[in-house]
């Protein structure tokens, strides 16, 4: 069994770029589960449903949940209380890892932490999984925590220190973004727009402009892959 865990940002990018149907098609060829936690649901469905500007996007994501394209962790018999406990644990570790001006810097919140917690639980259950996360900080925490330290030091014009012992806690996670998901959709022939060599470029840039943390260089590299 496999699972892709979706963070809020990825669903927001896909919803705002009108790529929800492509996600639906990806699920059809995926031998596993697309999961969201209750904290992510709050950010992408519950809250925006109360704001007229984003009501439509929220409804699109809600429909995915209603159709069971997206599922909650209890569909894999994962106890919500246990997930909440693990989420708190991860938030505590992540938010005490970096220190600026003598204070611990709160870097991630419950949605992002719940994705990491769910990934850990699935890995312990020997369920292969990746986290789809479009924002930079969570991905950096797993792949290049020193990058967060450097970035903050540069932006805050101050020395940022870190508890390096905490880094190992975030090492085992695998991350993809909405851009990689749509690359898969493109390669599998799931994109419904007539391709005259522009469609992949258009999709990747659209996702970037809706908040996916990807550079122009990376987009060029992805396009050059056979």
């Amino acid at each position: 069994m496999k699972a892709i865990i979706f963070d809020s940002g990825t669903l927001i990018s896909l919803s705002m770029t009108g790529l929800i149907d492509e996600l639906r098609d990806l699920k059809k060829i995926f031998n596993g589960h697309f999961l969201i936690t209750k904290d992510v649901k709050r950010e992408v469905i519950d809250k925006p449903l109360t704001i007229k500007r984003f009501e439509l996007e929220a409804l699109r994501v809600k429909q995915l949940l209603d159709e069971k394209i997206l599922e909650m962790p209890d569909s894999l018999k994962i106890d919500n209380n246990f997930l909440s406990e693990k989420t708190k644990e991860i938030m505590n570790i992540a938010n005490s890892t970096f220190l600026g001006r003598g204070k611990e810097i709160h870097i991630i919140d419950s949605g992002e932490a719940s994705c990491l917690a769910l990934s850990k639980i699935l890995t312990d259950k020997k369920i292969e999984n990746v986290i789809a996360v479009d924002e930079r900080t969570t991905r950096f925490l797993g792949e290049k925590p020193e990058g967060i330290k450097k970035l903050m030091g540069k932006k805050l014009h101050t020395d940022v220190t870190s508890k390096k012992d905490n880094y190992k806690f975030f090492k085992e996670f695998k991350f993809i973004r909405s851009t990689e998901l749509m690359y898969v959709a493109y390669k599998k022939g799931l994109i419904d727009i007539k391709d005259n060599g522009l469609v992949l470029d258009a999709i990747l840039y659209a996702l970037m402009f809706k908040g996916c943390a990807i550079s122009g260089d990376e987009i060029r590299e992805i396009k050059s892959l056979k």
Partner: protein
Amino acid sequence: MQEVDNIISILKETRNAIKNKDVISLRSLSDQTIHTATVSQDPDNIAIAVIVYTLGKIIEKGKNGEREKCDEICRKILIDIEKLIASLKINNPKIIRNNLNSMRKHLEGNSGIFKKYIQDVFRKASINKASKIYEHGISMETTASLLGITMFDLASYSGQKNISFSGKGDKTISTKERIKIAMDMFK
């Protein structure tokens, strides 16, 4: 409130910038409060960043018409700043919060189209300040929650301003490697 001395010095400069109708300085002063807000994540620090940025926008609007209304707002705000500085000196959270609320009321206390304009400026100021905090390395969800905006607002704004990616050092694993992770999941 945290880093009180720094905030007092920013407010004093803000006072001068308002008197001189110096929009550029106001923008830069607002950004300075963001450094403090990123670490402290103190709601009052964040409120000051948003108010200072909003003031810049109001003065800008005054230069392009609506001068009387803008001057009236600035006069009230200058008095509020004096009160705020005094409350910061005794560091009384309740009085500080009351003064911040009073500033916000004076900014929004107009009627009709101008009120709507100010409300819109406030919303945009919050998104702008959120994007600055996100740029400092704080996650999208944490930042959106601090500024009371949605992640949809922040994702869209940071994407358009290319804030989500700060440079070549942002690459963590190779492009090929990440594509392989995704492709392998669909095997």
